[in-house]
């Protein structure tokens, strides 16, 4: 159940995070830094949800 708390991280990264990374440079993969930060965290969020899904006992039940 502890692993579910990982879900808090995207909120911190995308709501509080911009206060610390609101800058255009350096560009990363051609994107201004703030945009690159947001994109990176969307990717990480997907990973986090995959980890939560895989470890959640509720998903091992028979129902679809």
């Amino acid at each position, binding site marked *: 159940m502890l692993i579910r708390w990982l879900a808090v991280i995207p909120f911190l990264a995308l709501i509080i995070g911009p206060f610390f990374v609101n800058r255009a440079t350096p560009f990363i993969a051609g994107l201004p830094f*703030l945009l690159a930060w947001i994109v990176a965290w969307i990717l990480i969020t997907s990973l986090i949800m*995959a980890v939560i*899904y895989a470890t959640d006992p509720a998903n091992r039940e028979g129902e679809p």
Partner: protein
Amino acid sequence: MNAALPFIAAAALLALALGFLARRGKDMDLEQWTVGGRGFGALFVFLLLAGEIYTTFTFLGGSGFAYGKGAPAYYILCYGTLAYVLSYFMLPPIWRYAKEHRLYSQSDFFVRKYDSPTLGIIVSLVDIVALIPYLVLQLKGLGIIVEIAGYGAISATAAIWIGAVVVTAYVMVSGVHGSAWTSVAKDTMILVIVIFLGIYLPYHYYGGLGPMFAAIEEAKPGFTVLPPHGQGLWWFASTVLLTALGFYMWPHTFASLYTAKGAKVIRKNTIVLPLYQLILLFVFFVGFAATLQVPGLTGPDIDLALFKLSVKTFDPWFVGVIGATGVLTALVPGSMILLTAATLIANNLYRAVDRSADDRRVSALAKLLVPAVAAVAVFFTLKGGETIVALLLMGYSLVTQLFPALARNNIATREGAAAGIIAGVATVAGVSLTGASFHTLLPWAPVEFQDLNIGIVALAVNFVVLILVSLATRHAAAPAGAAAE
């Protein structure tokens, strides 16, 4: 006849054909019509939930927002992602409860959970008031797309009428099955078109993404970061939070959740949906590319950025393909909204008055209401003008007021839930009608505070009223919150 028109016409016909075909082999009772017999697997649920992201508002508005405002547009990427994270925990219990009690609409949920038909009527009214401007927006977007992409051959008014007739026809025949089938066509097309445009345009005009953003930062320093005031960091944080909470409160999104055949389907989708959102990034690239290429659009005209740049760049036939995609982005969400509004009126308003009505009669009435709701939306589309985006934001603030009463808690009583919703909605209405903001209400407050999204206040008022009234009425009512567990 120009080269663009056949493609646009084909999109409308495709939607109509898929919409009709979707009915095959199904007995269209109320449960099939509104919630697909609760038998949809991961793909259809995914497309219905994701369909919310790619409406005309995103296609035109997302690129237009990036074109006109720059970095504040990023908020659209963030709030969807966070809403999906929330949905992992919030939606499965709601789905299970809806299945157990055979619920059709969002307001059914409130009726059951709080055992209060009155609360159901309140929620239905809030939903309908919020849905109509959303439908108007889709139709208005459709008009703009057909007029520009068709090089003026079909007027916006004609396009709006044709679009409304197409949607009405297939919603009446196939219900949510029609929406699901057409959303397959819509999402396939938009995926291909948006990714192509988002990559091609920056390379064509600037030689790549990096050079494009460098050119924009040189011409407009600070355009790709949040500004110090106005739509700055505090606006961004409060807006992301507010819209993430409101995301699933839209009644048509809420109801599309009922179509799932299991809770696991919903949880699994939360892994892929954030990635799917990233397609919005390409929509932004189009908007950013347009900033220096078709400058000078201001006010509501920023929504034209994508099509202005397309017309400047491509042959008419390809503008037609883009237009066809745009048409589908209006029709599919439009059909979901229409279906939801008709179901709400028949199932939650009519049935509350005439308790003896059976499913068959409610179902027949809901289908008859589809053209009526569509006609009302067409009327407002042709009559009203500039205030649509304001109405949409008001709609968002309105549906978000349903969140506190929905959140799983053991505090809320039916009186508390109703009082909270009414207080929140009244605050939204008061603020919207007087045009107030923190700048005018609290001129002495620090500027960071003034930039907060005003919807946060309504939500706070709602929470406080809900808790106070619930505590006051607690002993009188059964603990309703437990029912959702």
